[in-house]
């Protein structure tokens, strides 16, 4: 088992406009990318569990031409609403870092 953070070159979260939060998992090494992709570990269901959110709001993309994975969800609090704790949405990536990949 290896933590996803040790295989990916970048695991980031970011606003995709003020209403959507998006998560990118990117690789430089094609073998590592394929290992993660073919493990089947990454899924909408996994994301919903990691982030305590309903599975039907999660979008998941596997992108061979960019060697990356993307998750997107509606922002739990729209950007800049009173109470929004992360204006750029940039510090929401941590739970993905410790996903175990066989």
């Amino acid at each position, binding site marked *: 088992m290896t933590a996803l953070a040790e295989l990916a070159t*970048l695991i980031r979260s*970011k*606003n*995709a*406009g*003020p*209403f*959507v939060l*998006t998560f*990118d998992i*990117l*690789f*430089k090494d094609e073998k590592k990318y394929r290992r993660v992709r073919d493990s089947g570990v990454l899924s909408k269901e996994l994301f919903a569990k*990691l*982030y*305590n*959110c309903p599975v039907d709001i999660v*979008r998941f*993309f596997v*992108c061979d*031409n*960019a*060697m*990356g994975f*993307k998750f*997107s969800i*509606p*922002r*739990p*609090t*729209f*950007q*800049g*609403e*009173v*109470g929004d*704790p*992360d*204006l*750029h949405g940039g*510090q*929401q990536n*941590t*739970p993905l870092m410790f996903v175990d990949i066989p």
Partner: protein
Amino acid sequence: MEEIRFVCGSGGLGGGKVLAKALDEAMAMKPHFIACDAGTTDSGPFSLGSGRTNYPREAVKRDLEIILAAAKRAGIPVLIGSSGTAGIDAQVDWVVDIANEIATEHQFKVKTTAIHSEQSPAYLKGLYRDSRIKPLDPAPPIDEALFDRTAHVVGMMGVEPLQKALAGGAELVVAGRCSDSALFAAMPIMKGFPEGLAWHAGKVMECGTQVCESAGRGVIYAKLTKDELLIRPYGEGLRCTPQSVAAHSFYENGDPYIHYESSGALDLTDSTYEAVDEFTVRIRNSGFRHADTYTVKLEGAELVGYQTVIVGGIRDPYFIRNYDTWIEDVRKKIVTSAKEILKLEPSDFRLDFHAYGRNAVMGALETETSMPREIGLVLNVTASTQALATKLAEISRQPLLHTPIPEWSGSITSIAFLHNPVPLERGAVYRFCLNHVAIPRTQEEMFRMRSLEIG
């Protein structure tokens, strides 16, 4: 025309990343235009609501001066989009004024077209009544009265107004709110180059050197032909790789393949990325599908109220392990005092406690439950006036300071305050109130052009 060449001078005009030496190197390739995005919603709704810019005037002048002088020497146009952060009319005029100051100091004349993109409440209400305003997903709920409450609403222009300005002979286009990619796609599409690659060029160039393996100070240069796009940086230690360019197509988009614009959708599903040399990437097979209906994305901000902030820290482990119940006791005391002293109901104000160290950063998305050594506590009090927010903060001070926990008997101080006086007045607070598109009656009616000679 066999090929068109262009330069992104900066990923954010005023950010100070324009490098004159790198721009000179790119200018040696004889580009046909330079474009720069100057705005963002990424920092929040404040700039759109208040009209304040993210960068000081001196910073925008510094970046624009390098770009405008180089373009003037080469005799090529410059396009600036989302001028002054949010692209409201006053911010467009502010950038025109800065450009005028530069032109006057350099003793050159510049044929300039300003494009205003702010939308009036009366116009928007007319569209709303005609069912010409449609929600995107997700969107805040709206009604007609919203348009009278908004501080500012802008429409995001596509390539069409920019093309009109260029066709009119503008040497400098200072655009209001604008699709970042449109700044780069406008001229290539006008000259008959493939739309998919032209929009894709914009998508990967608009953030400047962020498309590189490691971002830094420099510029991005592109060469577009009928069937391929070449992209590379100029600047110290910068390079584009197939992975860095492909990955940047992901950046800040909910969908990695489909990117919606006014006139249609850029489709990157079949795009290919290959290395040409150490610095340059070749892109092919990007598509563009025209939309049946021309739409203009709306961005709006409305005033929520005024905030006063309290900052403090908690170190005592007894308080930390009781934090969740303790903070509820604090909240109840403040609500009671607000009712007794200020005659306010809980719906008249908001108390937002952000417990740094506990779950302040991820909020509802946090699943980790362990307790920290310290908690940094920020209380944001929001009310209808600044005076009221501050009064609420003032009556919050004692409950935060002396709300007991079962473990200790006698008087104990529960929080380490950082400031005297404790409350910090933060000013007006805005919210984004629209994630909608407008369907204008004509493509032109939302964007007003004004041509002038500056210098």
